[in-house]
């Protein structure tokens, strides 16, 4: 069952990725160029704002936040935006937000390749294996948390259109408060690891005043991700068939 859902999710993600820039003159080049350009611009702006972090750190932070935010927002809207499929086919409801998380993973993977290039440009060496592992684990956490939140909010977004409209705004506000911009976040730092999306970025950019992270910190972020993903799975498993009546 799990494999089938994953295969279907990938089918939907592939459809959207192929269709995103299909028939445009530069075709799939845009799949690469669009997230790269966006991440690069934001990394440079961020670095100008706070030079404590090198551009590569800003870039990785942005890639992680973007992976979280897009898997959350698109996942949340995935049932409402696939009305035809939801009402006419028996695809498992979980496949819809999962497909958005997979799309975010592809964009995240492209972003990480860019991060390696920027790191190489800045330091004239490839990033240490430890850093690469940390970034990949953080990306996985961001996707897990984003997918969980998206799955959890997909049904409310299908039921209440206001919720669907408000979700992207919520994500923008969350970004403004995120540790990426808050750069230390003072009174918030104690709780940051419990906040979806923030924790992945937090773990990478190390805004915590205590250098380094304990296993407990990683465990907290992972717990949040697993909790959200399981909650989202449970909600769609139990109530997913309501979606065809609501969308």
């Amino acid at each position, binding site marked *: 069952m799990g494999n089938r859902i994953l*295969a*279907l999710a990938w*089918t939907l993600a*592939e*459809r959207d990725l*192929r*269709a995103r820039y*299909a*028939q445009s003159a530069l075709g799939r080049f845009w799949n690469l160029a669009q997230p790269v350009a966006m991440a690069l611009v934001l990394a440079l702006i961020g670095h100008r704002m706070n030079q404590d972090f090198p551009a590569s750190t800003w870039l990785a932070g942005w890639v992680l936040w973007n992976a979280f935010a897009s898997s959350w927002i698109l996942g949340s809207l995935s049932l409402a935006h696939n009305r*035809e*499929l*939801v*009402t*006419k*086919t*028996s*695809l498992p409801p979980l496949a819809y937000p999962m497909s958005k998380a997979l799309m975010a993973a592809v964009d995240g993977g492209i972003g990480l390749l860019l991060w390696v290039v920027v790191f190489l440009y800045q330091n004239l060496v490839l990033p240490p294996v430890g850093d690469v592992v940390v970034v990949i684990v953080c990306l996985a956490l961001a996707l897990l948390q984003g997918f969980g939140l998206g799955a959890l909010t997909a049904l409310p977004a299908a039921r209440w259109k206001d919720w669907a409209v408000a979700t992207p705004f919520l994500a923008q506000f969350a970004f403004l408060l995120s540790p990426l911009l808050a750069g230390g976040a003072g009174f918030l730092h104690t709780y940051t690891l419990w906040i979806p999306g923030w924790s992945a970025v937090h773990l990478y950019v190390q805004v915590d005043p205590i250098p380094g992270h304990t296993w407990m910190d990683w465990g907290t972020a992972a717990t949040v991700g697993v909790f959200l993903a399981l909650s989202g799975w449970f909600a769609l498993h139990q109530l997913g*068939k*309501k979606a*065809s*009546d609501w969308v």
Partner: protein
Amino acid sequence: MTPHIAFDQLTKKFGSYTALDAVSGHWTAGQAIGVVGANGAGKSTLLRLLSGISAPTSGRMDVQGRLASLLEVGTGFHPELTGRENIYLYGQILGLRRAEIRRQLDAVVDFAGVGSQLDLPLKHYSSGQKIRLGFSVAAQLQADILLLDEVLGVGDAAFQQQSFERMQSLLADEGRLVVVVSHHLGTIRRMCGSVLWLDHGRTKQFGPTAEVLDAYQGLDSAAAPAPFVPSSWVAHLGWDRPLVAGQPAVLEIRLKNEQPVARPNLRLSLFNQNGEFMAPFSPVTSGLWAGQSWPAHAKIQMSFDRLPLMRGRYHLGLRLTDNDVELERTDVALPFEVNEGLYFPHGDTFAPKHNGVWLAPTWELGA
């Protein structure tokens, strides 16, 4: 375990509206079940519940076997993707594996007849080609239980026959259970061994096809002909008198738009009592009023000096467009009955067992 569907007291409510009301059944492999009923009777709701797309409000359901449902041809097609990409996409949505699709790709393309356009984006296909492509993928489904909702009447006449034959070959496999929802009673009569007749969400009758369909069609004749239900665009559609074969008849249509219709196109379709298409009527194809706008409350009349229909029951479908934008579409807009009468002055020599059209060709006798 033998594939089967069992459901007990299945009920579906949308707020205070009951779409399906305590419907029960037990269907097993080897059966072909037709589901009939008027629009809004609950046919599609039943299929959506059995497919697992929607959950019942109450009642129990047990499905054993690999189930595939086809509630609409081509759901999920993406216009920017090529025909080939859409075949893979749609096949997977329907539950086929990529390897299965790859194995059957040639058969799908042959069946759909789109070989030369396979790598063109779907947006360049005609609507008929899209339907053919969708059905061709669906026809490859190897499920134990197949649920079909109004998908056998798609495409042109040749493709409908091709689709029907394909379904017959699927039915020949006795290990399969097929449930067909259709207004095309001819299709149901030819394909199905049993029929479930739904009326306002309830089971009206379930039994052998001939018995149920005869009762279903008989009910139509016993009751007064259903009047046309005014819609947002059409205020009235009706004949000016009781219809008799060979006698004059006038069909009147009155629009009730707020504004004139700039580039109207009105199409009427005639269907026989089995829901089989018989003839089209349109002022545009008759060479009339092309490019001419219609007033907001236009009154249109279609007249026959001698109604060329045999005794029997028919219905008209109606489609009204403005500048190719669909304003109104009703498949069963006006059911009506034609009484027996003389079409040819020298007498009719055919016993009108079935509905049909009287044609008056020119005859010549040579030596």
